């Protein structure tokens, strides 16, 4: 059976095609301002990679902030539902899932079938999402991809006072004036963000194993800060940004845990 999952996030659109619960194609396209067009592009790319057409696909599930903007789909499913399915599929011992995307942060607890038991979402404040690290990478003039590795070279722990992304930008400027090293500032940024995510996750509590998904999971500096804050090692699957789309494709296939 061939199924497809589309995850229309705030920043990127991810598509995963499954054949008998094996990933046969995935694509990732910037959402931009013409989301429908970008979604079509992402789907076409995945079709090409898998060598299939729409008629070959049994069921399509769409998820994410722009789920209704997908050019075609059979059903929509919540992001937390898709995240937990995807996480349990990749790491069967997952009982808590943290998803840090471009503009949202989510914490959830699930059972062995990937069914949601409880969840908490932040979609009101950029300080607990990828937008925060993006703004900080601009303020520090360090490419986003390098921010994580840079923060691991920090020599000092400097607390960040600002909780708001906009105020933090000014604070970073002040730190630059005070000759704080970029590595120490990068660490301050990741520590601040990790503490936001941790306080969200603590509201619902967490069980091992904790799986971290979403684009920000690629940031090793943030992962390091989060591990220290939570007091455990989170599991980061390969290609963490695709877990939502994978979960959508699994939902389309009716997957409920197991092999």
């Amino acid at each position, binding site marked *: 059976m061939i199924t497809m999952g589309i995850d229309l996030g705030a920043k990127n659109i991810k598509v995963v095609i499954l054949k008998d619960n094996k990933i046969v194609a995935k694509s990732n396209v910037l959402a931009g301002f013409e989301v429908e067009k970008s979604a079509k592009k992402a789907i076409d790319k995945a079709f090409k990679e898998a060598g299939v057409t729409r008629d070959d696909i049994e069921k399509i599930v769409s998820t994410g902030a722009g789920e209704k903007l997908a050019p075609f789909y059979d059903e929509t499913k919540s992001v937390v539902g898709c995240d937990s399915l995807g996480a349990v599929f990749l790491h069967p011992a997952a009982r808590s899932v943290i998803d840090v995307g471009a*503009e949202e942060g989510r914490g959830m607890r699930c059972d062995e079938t990937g069914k949601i038991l409880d969840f908490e979402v932040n979609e009101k*404040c*950029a300080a607990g999402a990828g937008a925060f690290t993006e*703004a900080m990478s601009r303020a520090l003039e360090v490419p986003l991809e390098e921010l994580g590795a840079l923060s691991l070279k920090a020599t000092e722990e400097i607390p960040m006072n600002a909780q*708001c992304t*906009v*105020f933090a930008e000014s604070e970073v400027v002040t730190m630059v*004036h005070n000759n704080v090293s970029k590595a120490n500032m990068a660490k301050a940024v990741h520590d601040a963000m990790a503490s936001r995510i941790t306080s969200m996750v603590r509201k619902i509590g967490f069980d091992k194993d904790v799986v971290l998904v979403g684009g920000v999971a690629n940031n090793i500096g943030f992962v390091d800060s989060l591990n220290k804050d939570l007091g455990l090692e989170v599991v980061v699957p390969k290609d963490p940004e695709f877990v939502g789309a994978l979960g959508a494709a699994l939902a389309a296939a009716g997957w409920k845990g197991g092999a």
Partner: protein
Amino acid sequence: MVEKLELWRWTESRWTNPDLDWKGKVITSGVDVGSVSSQSVVLADGELYAYSNMRTGSDSPDSAMKAINWAMEDTGLKLEDIVYTVGTGYGRVNVPFSQRAITEIACHARGGNFMYGPSVRTILDMGGQDCKAIRCDERGKVKNFLMNDKCAAGTGRGMEVFADLLGVSINDVGDLSLQVDKEPPPVSSTCVVYAKTEATGLLREGWPKNKVLAAYCSAMAHRIMTLLERIGVEEDFAITGGIAKNKGVVKRLEKEVGIKIMETSKYDPQIAGALGAALFAKALYDKGKRK
């Protein structure tokens, strides 16, 4: 090198009372070192004599010094003539020539009471990096207050971000935002970063600048309303701080609250905190003399 436009630069101000001679009078002062702006107020026998309102630099003591020197400029007054100074605001402990530091909440209530009269019961101070809703009595004493200093939504800093995004001087934002035939739906009122993303999308759709500004001013009014709802608004209702000069926000807020907002003071509405501090300085000086 291309010179960067500094659209956030609001107009600084300075004023001296032409009908007052300070000589032989008790001179007290108040200095409010805020995160974005600094003000100083000089009183002669408790009457408003001079004030200044300028941008805060990177150094608080220096900003306090600059503010008081500008207020005293061309008056013949010297720092030694001031018998008592109270510092307030975020940098209040860094006013080198002050005898006391008092919180900006108390100072704003006291200053608002002086500027807007004893009938004021609610003062909304809309500052650069925070927003405070203060309930006070007829003597300007604080009864209750609520404050947001955690988030840029609903603060002057948020407005600066928008002025910058749209390439409009911050002084013009309010008036431009009122030049719309129909009020557009507001952008996100919870986060400036999200509002900015939304606004960029709207501009791409072809919205004119004034319509985008209207959507932001209305989001800001909405955000402030959530603060006011929690503390309650009692008449008379006055606004102080930089955003008091932004008619786009004030008019929309008035509509949301459903209570008339008092006409903006003839003095710069940003001086309320420093004015309150100067009034406290006068009271503290008098009290010290009586002992």
